[in-house]
Structures are given as C-alpha cells and as structure tokens.
C-alpha cells in the first residue's frame, strides 16, 4: 500500500518536512515504512482503513523537539495529527480524520510530572496511560484514587481531553482538568490559568483565573497541542456501595430515568450510572451465535426471552456511590432504597458494600481494565465497534423518544441495538449506542455509516447533538450545530473556524478534528 500524501501537500513538500522531522527528533523516531504506517491505521475502521491512512508518523520526546516539528510542519504546510497514547479505540484510534495527515505521536512524552497528595491532583504528560498512572499511585501507596476509563491502555490526558468518562464522583474527566501547558501551532508554549503566574503554586489548585479560562477550549479541539495537564484526584472514600437495579418492562424507561434523576441531581448517587437495554444485557458471557443464527439484528423477542430465562428485567442499572464520612454510605443506601420503594416499587434492587480497610473488589472498578474488548468480536472476527453518542436531558419522556428512534433505526439497518445510557451529572445522559460490526464485511460497515448519518439528521431535528464521534463522522457531527446559521454555517462552527484561522493559519494542527479546519484542508 503506497503512502498517501497529506491533504494539499506535494511529495516534495512532504519529503522536505520528513527530513526536517528527522533532524528534530532523530531518524529512528520518524516512521515511514509500510509496516510502521500500518500500525497507525484504525484497527476498528468502519470500512476501508486506508480512508484514514497516514503518510508517516513522528514522535518527539520533549517540547523542544515538538516546537521544531511544528516549525517544519508550518514551513512545508504539512498537517500533523497529535495523539497521546493513540488508543482512542472506537473513535479512530491513532488515525487522522483526513487521509495522509502525519501522525504526531506524543507517547514518548510520558512523565508523571507531579502527584500532590495534599491538594489531590496530578500533572501528566500525553504518554501516561492508565496502566502507568495506577502503577505509580500504587507504588506511592497514595491516598488518591484514579477515575479510570473503560480500557486502561488509553492516555489519562487524552481521555480527559476527549471528554471521556469514568465511574467515580470524578467521572466527568474533563471537569477534573485544572491547568494546562499547551504549544500553539507557531511553537509558543502557554500555561493556562494560574500557570501563567511565575512561580505559581495554584496552577492546579483553582480553575478560575483572572481572565478567561482556556482549558475547555483545548479539549476536543485542534487549537494547540496539550503538553501537560493538571487533573484533580479524589481522596480515598470511607465507604462505597455498588447497586444493581432491574426494572421489568420495556415501557419502564421513562419512569426509571425520572426516578433516578433526583437522586443523581442531589448527589445521593454521586457517580455515573449506566442503564443497559435488553440487547446490551444479553451479551454477558454469551456468543452471538448462542442467541441468534438468523439474518440481520437479533429480534427483540429473542433477547426478551433470554432475559426472562435469567430472571432479569428489560432495563438494568448499575452504579457505585461513595461517601467520605464513616457510616455515611449506609445513609445513602437507605435513601436510595426508600426512594425506589416510594417511586418505583416494581424495581428489583441489590447492593453490595465496602468500607475502608476491606479488600477491594471488582465491582469497585478501581483496578485497571480492558473489559470493552470482550464485546469487539460479537459479530465475528475481525470485529470492531463504534458508537452513536447523543447527549439527552435526563427527562424520561425525552430519553424514551431518542431511545426508541435509535432502536428502530438499528434494527432497520440489521444491527443489534446495543445501547447503554450513562447518567453523567444530574442533568443529562450520554447514550452509547454501540455499532458492533465485522470489519471485513463491507455491507455491514456501509450499513453502520448509513445508520450513523441517518441518526445524525434525525436527532438533530429533535434538537439533540453528540458528545463524541469516530473520525469518519466528524464533519457530520459538526454539521448538527446549526443555530443562528449564516451562509449555511452555524454560529458556533463559524466561531471555531475563526479561532482556528487565527491560531493556526496554515491549518497544520489536526485539520478535520471535530470538523474544524476540514473545509480549508
């Protein structure tokens, strides 16, 4: 497979840039061979992985080398696609949105710069994985707990920047960001917040500086390369409880969401809850062929029958709650049980309990994990998955409306509607409607693409947007932001483009990331 050229770039310009990259980082850290380029392809591509192939990869070890790489990229107008651990699986992994863009692999910048036990924060570089981070916390016998992502290969920084989630009170990872060091496209190094004060000891202590807070601007964007990130960490709690709540009927979703909402809103349930539909519950411990050998999606009656055989309801909720006061966890358990008894007595509730000093258990999700890989080959090997992820207000009727649309469209496209809904904070749920596909089945991957784009149009008409998307769909997801459009472009995408043109006039940083800069590439 020949190397693609970056968008708008000649072979001579690419060759000149690669020479400059080699001078900057050392020739062994510029990767151009076919095998090396193949290692940066999306392993879960929704269709031909070559659609997002890279021309090369370059891996600086520090900010000095990074500045030289960006200078060369500007000089030769060669775009680069920064990745941290490059494990954004299900969303493109390390592959660029626009074919040919050179991967800027930041994995060698892998220092845990600081872990502050007193103030409860850490400062990390891009190449620190959850495996690395947990090992360091354990080595220090830290009192601080990690809020881990679904799979621990990922970067602590990258997950937070991509708005990833975890299952502790610190589970909205982007909300735990406090202070960044970023390099702008022109090589300027900037520290946000109180990091802009010489000798600051408050960089990670307070988020709101004199003037604007820029941290959010550098998440899910391409306005700079984040080189250091401050993250708040939770002190170890006194107690935890893990809940499993099952409700019997498909029509119970709205009541379930409305029953959970006040508990999540007042922080009685102080971490993410996950609602799983019947299809999602049916995969546990099973092969798809155990359930269904027919054509198309597994019919609803099949999964409903399986749940009945296992004594489970159509919807299942799991969550953990945390308390920092001795005995406090029992008050939370009591309140949750009483609340459901009053508002949803048909619900079946189980809980387990842990207090400080007891051995940790798997349900606490405090260990590193690769659990999502268990589902990848649901449709057969080589498998892949990616999700449609609308953000929906935590109102039962609206959640039901969006869910019913998603389920219907998945079934029509021959895909199992494997849906989880994550109660992030008190006010919204993030849907993860996972498309599970066989990568070497072009009809199935084409159906996934049609399904995703159909749902973009339809939920957009309901006033709903997405929280994240695979690189294949970034322009589609951006196009949903139509409020106050002029000349066919919504006001917010237009603002993003204006900022991008100002900060990165040559459009060298991740063109197409969240749809920003793709039109100019």
């Amino acid at each position, binding site marked *: 497979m020949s190397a693609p050229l970056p968008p708008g770039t000649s072979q001579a310009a690419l060759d000149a840039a690669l020479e400059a990259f080699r001078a900057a980082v050392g020739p*062994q*850290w510029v*990767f151009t*061979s*076919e*095998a*090396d380029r*193949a*290692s*940066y*392809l999306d*392993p*879960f591509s929704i269709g031909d992985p070559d659609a997002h192939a890279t021309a090369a*990869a370059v*891996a600086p070890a520090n900010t000095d080398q990074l500045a030289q790489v960006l200078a060369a990229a500007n000089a030769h107008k060669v775009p680069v696609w920064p990745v941290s651990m*490059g*494990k954004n*699986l299900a969303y493109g*992994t*390390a592959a660029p949105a626009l074919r040919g863009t050179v991967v800027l*692999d930041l*994995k*060698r910048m892998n220092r845990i710069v600081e872990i502050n036990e007193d103030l409860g924060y850490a400062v990390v570089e891009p190449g620190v994985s959850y*495996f690395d981070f947990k090992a360091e916390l354990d080595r220090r016998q830290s009192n601080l707990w990690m809020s881990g992502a679904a799979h*621990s290969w990922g970067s602590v920084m990258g997950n937070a920047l991509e708005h990833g989630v975890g299952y502790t009170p610190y589970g909205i990872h982007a909300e735990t960001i406090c202070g960044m060091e970023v390099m702008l496209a022109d090589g300027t190094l900037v520290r946000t917040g109180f990091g802009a004060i010489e000798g600051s000891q408050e960089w990670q202590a307070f988020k709101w500086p004199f003037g604007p807070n820029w941290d959010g601007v550098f998440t899910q964007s391409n306005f700079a390369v984040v080189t250091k990130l401050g993250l708040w960490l939770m002190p170890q709690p006194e107690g935890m409880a893990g809940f499993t709540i099952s409700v019997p009927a498909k029509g119970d979703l709205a009541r379930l969401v409305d029953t959970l909402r006040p508990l999540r809103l007042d922080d009685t349930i102080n971490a993410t809850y996950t609602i799983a539909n019947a299809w999602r519950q049916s995969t546990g411990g099973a*092969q798809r062929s155990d359930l269904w050998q027919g054509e198309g999606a597994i019919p609803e009656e099949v999964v409903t029958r399986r749940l009945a055989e296992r004594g489970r309801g159509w919807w299942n909720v799991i969550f953990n709650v945390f308390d920092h006061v001795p005995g406090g966890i029992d008050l939370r358990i009591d309140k949750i049980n009483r609340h459901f008894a009053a508002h949803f007595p048909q619900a079946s509730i189980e809980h387990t309990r842990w207090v400080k000093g007891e051995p940790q258990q798997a349900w606490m999700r405090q260990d*590193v994990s*690769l*659990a999502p*890989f*268990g589902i*990848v*080959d649901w449709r057969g*090997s*080589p*498998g*892949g998955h990616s999700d449609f992820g609308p953000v929906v207000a935590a109102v039962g009727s609206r959640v039901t409306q969006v869910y019913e649309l998603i389920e219907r469209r998945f079934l029509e496209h021959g895909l199992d509607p494997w849906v989880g809904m994550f109660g992030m904070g008190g006010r919204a749920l993030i849907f993860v409607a996972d498309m599970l596909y066989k990568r070497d089945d072009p009809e199935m991957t084409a159906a996934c693409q049609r399904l995703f784009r159909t749902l973009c149009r339809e939920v957009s008409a309901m006033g709903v947007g997405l929280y994240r998307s695979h690189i294949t769909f970034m322009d589609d997801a951006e196009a949903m932001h139509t409020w106050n459009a002029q000349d066919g472009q919504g006001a917010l995408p237009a603002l993003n483009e204006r900022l991008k043109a100002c900060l990165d006039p040559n459009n060298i940083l991740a063109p197409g990331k969240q749809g920003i800069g793709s039109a100019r590439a």
Partner: protein
Amino acid sequence: MKLTITLAVGALALSTLAAGAQEAPPSRTGEDIFAQRCVFCHDARGWGTRSLARRTPPDQAELLEREVLPEILVRHAVRRGIGSMPQFTPTEISDAELDALARWLATRNAD
C-alpha cells in the same frame, strides 16, 4: 493446530516484517514486554485468551501455554493486529523489542 499456523504465516507479507537490525539493543527483555503490554489480554482469563479459545485446539489459547508460536506470527500480530486484536505502534514496542518478544515467546514455548 500446525495447519492453522502454517496458513496464517503463509498469508503474511514477509518482506515487511524484517527485524529492526539497525536499532540499538532493546532496553526491555521479551519477558518484560510481555508483562507490560501483552499479559493483560493474554493471561489465563484475559479477553484475548478467551477469544483465541474459540479457534484453537484445547489448552492452546493461552500464549504462554502454546506449543508452537512462530516469531513471524508474533511480529505480524503485534504490528498489524490479528483478528480483533489491535496492533501496536513502534513507539509502544520498538522493532528491536518486538524481535526480543517474538524470540522469547518462540524459544520459551519450544522448551
């Protein structure tokens, strides 16, 4: 099992799998790399082992128990992925480290 492996190896693009002969010696041993990168999926209860159990003879799903594990198959699987296993880039496992890993697995299993 030998037939399966022969077919798998035969499908590889041999010319792209040359060892990193010009690189400095790896700083990590094959055993280190297995412990740091592979074992999470390929221990007795890992998802990789469970996945392989569906397509290998009995007792051959766990890599450390595999009777025959050719170096070339390990190099291919790591750098290009195989089945539902994602690949690893040269910044995660260098060519020299990959050689060490492949040799360690092959010779260990041959013992």
